[in-house]
């Protein structure tokens, strides 16, 4: 592969990342905080590609002389014995020395531009154990639920309050949670939401059983908004043997997937 093609592939790859990070597409794959770094990094990649193109395509009469001139070599190397050696004047334009592996950079760009795979959902949730473990136990320090009736909170927050606070900070209040439908341990639909700390490769599900007026007959990965109350009912996730709390559902409605699908 020659340098022109490398520059084209870099632009292609960087453009795909840039396009994903200026739209909301990147939220399917990485944390929101990464956005400025994604934009900066893809702009730098494009700059590197443009500079490569410029150096490759500029008419360069006279550089031949410069390039064989030891004084033009890196100044800090000047004292070194290499500058006079034949190898030092080697300027190598051979394409076959350039990495073929660079072609692979097309793949993630295609993934972003052509396919734009969905955020992790029901399948990934079934593969991994529920992520509310004792590490999220904040002891007695649970702040009160947000104001409003129903109180809007997250699946992760509800699960932590239900498991470790035994629902005390929820009390008798109604809560509103958003998540997607996935099959539970007993085959009944449960509510799940993926949490992510860096990128989708470390995405883990938080699972909630639904009792009461639970939805039935919904396809996997359907997003729903559930309003309900605390119940002390529990089940266990067969994947990692952790407890899955339940929510007593008052009513639910189907919603569109949120902009940021992760908690």
């Amino acid at each position, binding site marked *: 592969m*020659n340098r*022109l*093609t*490398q520059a*084209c592939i*870099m632009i292609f790859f960087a453009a795909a*990342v840039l396009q994903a990070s200026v739209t909301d597409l*990147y939220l399917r*794959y*990485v944390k929101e905080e990464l956005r400025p*770094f994604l934009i900066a*990094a893809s702009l730098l*990649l494009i700059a*590197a590609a443009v500079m490569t193109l410029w*150096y490759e395509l500029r008419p360069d009469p006279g550089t031949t002389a*410069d*390039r*064989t001139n030891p004084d033009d*070599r*890196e100044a*800090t190397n000047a004292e*070194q014995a*290499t500058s006079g050696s*034949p*190898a*030092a*004047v*080697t*300027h*190598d*334009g*051979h*394409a076959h*020395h350039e*990495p073929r*592996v*660079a072609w*692979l*950079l097309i793949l*993630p760009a295609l993934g972003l531009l*052509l*396919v734009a*795979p969905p955020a992790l959902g029901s399948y*990934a949730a079934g*593969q*991994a*154990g529920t992520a509310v*473990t*004792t590490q999220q136990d904040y002891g007695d320090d649970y702040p009160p639920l947000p104001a409003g009736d129903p109180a809007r909170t997250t699946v992760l927050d509800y699960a932590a309050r239900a498991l470790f606070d035994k629902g005390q900070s929820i009390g008798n209040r109604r809560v509103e949670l958003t998540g997607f439908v996935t099959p539970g341990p007993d085959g009944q639909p449960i509510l799940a939401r993926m949490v992510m*700390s*860096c*990128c*989708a*490769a*470390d995405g*883990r599900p938080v699972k909630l059983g639904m009792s009461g007026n639970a939805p039935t007959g919904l396809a996997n990965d359907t997003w729903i908004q559930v309003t309900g109350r605390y119940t002390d009912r529990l089940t266990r996730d*067969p*994947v*990692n*043997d952790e407890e899955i709390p339940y929510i007593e559902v008052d009513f639910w409605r189907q919603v569109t997937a949120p902009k940021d699908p992760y908690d």
Partner: protein
Amino acid sequence: MAASDRKTPPDTSTEADRPGLDHPSNTPHATSVEDGGRRGRIGSVEIFAAVLVLLIFLREPLAGLLTTPSLATWTTVFVSVMVQAVPFLVFGVLLSAVIAVFVPRSFWARALPKHPALAVPVASAAGVVLPGCECGAVPIAGSLIRRGVTPAAALAFLLAAPAINPIVLAATAVAFPHNPEMVLGRAVASLIVAMVMGWLWLRLGRADWIRLPHRPDLDGLGRGEMFWSAVRHDVVHAGGFLVIGAMAAASINVLVPERWLQTLADQPLLSVLALAGLAVLLSICSEADAFVAASLSQFSLTARLAFLVVGPMVDLKLISMQAGIFGRRFAARFAPATFAVAVTVAVITGMVLL
């Protein structure tokens, strides 16, 4: 020993006399000859254009594949590993190009102790200042070796930097709010592994195992051109191998369900090896692996410490990138040795601290 000879100034090792590199002895005119030849036949630019045109027609069948949940999840994980790595890769590549072009060789001779055995712990501790994950560290270590830093010290830096920098340690503290000793254990064990591997390299390593990729175009260019040339080369090289690693990690993520691990959790020795192996296969960024370790709550803290120590040092994407930057002969020896040392040190640290 060749590894330490490299450091004796004046340093005569350059791209040109690095062992194992075959240099075509063409003159500067070869460039224009090559350019002329390219115009006459189908070159890579034309192939690239053809691939793009072809893909426009393949869009529908590709989208159809994604209705299979496992394939969709594979693609999501693959794309997200790549997207997440981009800022770190670019940062690492830029820093490596700065090292290659703007930091004089004499700086490293002054900054690091003369004796390689002393340079190793200094380089390991210097890992504290590199805020990033492992994708950026590989090109930086390659650049350090090119600039005459003794390979033992550069490799110690490569191993230490992704594990002991402040961002990673802070993430570990957040992930284990009830076990602050995990942060200490991680830092101590990772530092020890990095230093042991550095010293091991001094005793057993052979310079000809390392074959840095040929960067021909750095010879005889102006500084600006050298800088961008180094950036381009490292991006396509390290990035290409990162793609291989990301594909491997996505495959493991989809093919190995977590419940298989459940059966291993109760056996002390097996659980350590299982989580160490999982760290290799999953290839999670070192800034996120603590959260995954925290969720593997059925395992002992020692097993999870092994996961945190092994992950930033040996994983599929790192092995792939190391094979690309340092050569296959290097990666085939370095990765298993690091794995063994990391598991041993993690177990001992776990017994003492946890």
